Structures are given as C-alpha cells and as structure tokens.
C-alpha cells in the first residue's frame, strides 16, 4: 500500500514546469529526473558546480573530474556550464534556481524542515541544504510519510535540529501530496492509490487540512 520511491519520484515529476532550473537532492529527488516528460525543458543544477547534468556515463567515458553533489559520476549535455562553488551558490542564493526537491527526516506544519543532524547519532553536516531551503522560491520535500518505526514525519513542530524555517511549499510522500499553507497546516491535495484519508490522517501528527473530496494521484 502506498507508493514506492519510484512512485514518489514520478508524482513529483508532474510538478516540474517547463523552462525552469532545478536542484535535486540525493536519493528520491535524483530519481525525479528520469520521469520528466520530453516536452518539458528543464536544466538540472548540481551545487558542486554544474548546470545541465547529463545522464550517467558509459563505463568507458567515466571522468573522475565530473561528479554530481552526491559524488556520482555524471556527464555534461549540450549547453552545460561548469563553475565554482561560490558561483553555484550565487545561483541558488540569488533565486535563479526555481525549484529545489530534497529529502527530509521531518517537516513541520509551518514548513520547517529537518534533514541534517540527529544529535549524538549522526553528524554528517548540512552540505548545501541550508542554503537551498533558505533561497529557492519553491521547495518540494520527497519522503516517506512515517519513519521505519512508524512515527509520523509530518509534525506540529520538528523534534530534530532544523535545516530551515517556513520554507517547504509541498510534501510528496508514499501516502499523499500536501501543500504547506502559509498560515500553517498540511493541506491534503491527493491520496496515493488505495490509501484512504483516514490512514493519512492517522499517519500525520501535524495539522492536516481536508476539504471536500480528495482525489487519488493520477499517473499516465
């Protein structure tokens, strides 16, 4: 029941608008690029200094000097450009990157996001996430609705150290698509196939706003 990672990525791909520049985080967000329709022209930015990320290379053309922010070997495409990390975050901070899609450990009903630290347990660092969520106009979170232990990840208030406040605009999980309203609250837009509103309500600790009929997600 609910979507797998591929399903989440497919649903998020529907949010991608023609003519935009997009930064994709590690994990599910990276998968999104596989499902963007051919008639939608977008350019993918990698914060380590590449605009126009191409597909993974064939074995014989691997270049150690060409990686994405997840340290995976990639390629350029016709029209790509390469630049420094300072220039890369000029693009991000300056609002030139229109959409950021990233994973999260928790999202609060006021749009706060936590995804960089578990005190005493995990100390990997925030990388570029704090810059990304503080900058892009549109932030979409891709994640599981609940943790492995079954706790809701959509909370009234984040329990983990946050990455940014009041920044998440939309959350797509294995169970639902929700807008985060400016005045607070997760407004339920769509259900995953076979998932009921009650199940979503039960899996959501933060305020869930349900108005009228909630349609199922549509996939081609």
């Amino acid at each position, binding site marked *: 029941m609910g979507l797998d990672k591929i399903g989440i990525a497919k649903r998020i791909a529907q949010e991608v608008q023609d003519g935009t520049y997009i930064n994709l985080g590690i994990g599910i967000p990276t998968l999104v690029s596989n499902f963007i329709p051919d008639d939608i022209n977008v350019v993918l930015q*990698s*914060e*380590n*200094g*590449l605009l126009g990320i191409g*597909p*993974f*290379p*064939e*074995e014989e053309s*691997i*270049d*150690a*000097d*060409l*990686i*994405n*922010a*997840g*340290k*995976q*070997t*990639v390629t350029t495409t016709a029209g790509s450009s*390469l*630049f*420094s*990390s*300072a220039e*890369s*975050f000029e693009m*991000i*901070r300056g609002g030139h990157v229109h959409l950021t899609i990233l994973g999260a450990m928790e999202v609060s009903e006021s749009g*706060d996001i936590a995804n960089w*630290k578990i005190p*005493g347990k995990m*100390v*990997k*660092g*925030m*990388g*570029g*996430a*704090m*810059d990304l969520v*503080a*900058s892009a106009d549109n932030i979409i979170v891709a994640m599981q609705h609940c943790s492995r232990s079954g706790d809701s990840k959509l909370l009234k208030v984040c329990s983990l*150290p*946050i*990455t*940014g*406040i*009041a920044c998440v605009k939309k959350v797509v999980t294995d169970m639902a698509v929700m807008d985060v309203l400016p005045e607070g609250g997760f407004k339920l837009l769509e259900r995953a196939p076979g998932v009921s509103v009650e199940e979503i309500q039960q899996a959501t600790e933060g305020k869930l706003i349900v108005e009228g009929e909630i349609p199922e997600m549509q996939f081609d």
Partner: protein
Amino acid sequence: MINKVVANADEAVRDIPDNAVLMLGGFGLCGIPENSIAALLRKGIKGLTCISNNAGVDDFGIGLMLQTKQVKKMISSYVGENAEFERQLLSGELEVDLIPQGTLAERIRAGGAGIPAFFTPAGYGTEVAEGKEVREFNGKMHLLESWLKADFSIVKAWKGDTSGNLIYKGTARNFNPMMAAAGKITIAEVEELVEPGELDPNNIHTPGIYVQRIFQGEQYEKRIEQRTTRIR
C-alpha cells in the same frame, strides 16, 4: 611575469608550521590536492585547522591526515563517508565547525576579496544562527557571516603556467578558485605545468596573482567515490 615554480610538493609545503590554518580545495575526492596532502603526511606537522568542504574518506584525501591525527579542527559543510572522522568527533578528539556549503564558499570568497562580513539568509532560525547578528532585508531574515582566510591555501588545477595562472577541469573546480584567493600563501599543484603564453588569457579561472607557489603533481589517482554508469 613572475616565476612561482617550486620543485615538488615537499618544497611547496616546506614552511607550513604546526597549528597552521589550511584551506584545501576539492568537493568529495574531486579536485583535491593529492600530492600536497601526501607531502603533509610525510612532513607530519600537527594541530592543523583544515578548511575544506569535505574531510575525504577513511583512506584517501584529508581522511589520511585524520588517521595520523594531524588535524585539530575541521571547518566543513559535509563530513559523511568517513568513519574515523565520526569516531574522533564523537570522542571529542576533533573539533568541527559545520557551515552551510554556500556560506562556506562565500566566506572563503570574502576572505580573498577583502570583504570582512556579509549578510546571507542561509541558516536563519537554525543552530547555525546561534550567536550571530540577525538583520531583516526586504522582509527576509539574514545572518551576518565573516570572512575566512588561511595561512596556506592548497589547491589543485588541471593546467597551470609558471606565473601561477590556473585552469580547472569539470567539477574539480569547486572550492579551489576561492581558496586560491583566500590564502596568505597559496600553493597550486597542477596536472600539467606550461610556460606563460600557452594558456588562453580569456579562459583563466584563477589569475596568477593569487598563487605564490606552483608545481606539477607526480601522478593523480583521482579516486571515485560513487562510480555510476549506464548501459549503452
């Protein structure tokens, strides 16, 4: 032009003392100064503060200097993929400043550019904001962040000329250009060292003015962290 050539990595790092503040270029293992790191290991200096976006992996890059406990403090944005690092951090052997990647890049750029402080929105409302001046511009809150400078910056480029001009390749550019400008002494190691005039002045990424020492590295392993391919 001014000749900046030194014989090799050992000569380039000869006068770096214990407790120096170093910047080291690279993103992950991409674009790191492999030869200079090896020379720092041979030299065995201790108590270093290393400013670098990442801390290498357990057995390559700055990770090697963590194994030998030459590093007192890391200033980075992301330090995953490194078990020894995590061990030293949790045990308190290693000090760590974690900084948002864009703020790190801009603070280093500011160090080279003579900008002592600037406002950025990244990190507002988070742990990163603790103790920092906050100010609102156009309805959005920002933090005041200060420049970062280094006693020695160590960068890696693809090609360089004897007067210190550098060209990077692919995403191996990353933090190298800003670090080159932010070091009191900047050491550049390159894959190919050429004579002045052989590089197109219009395509220089780091003008020679920022570089005090340059040498051609002996070999580059260029280890790949995530080898990902597609089937033809």
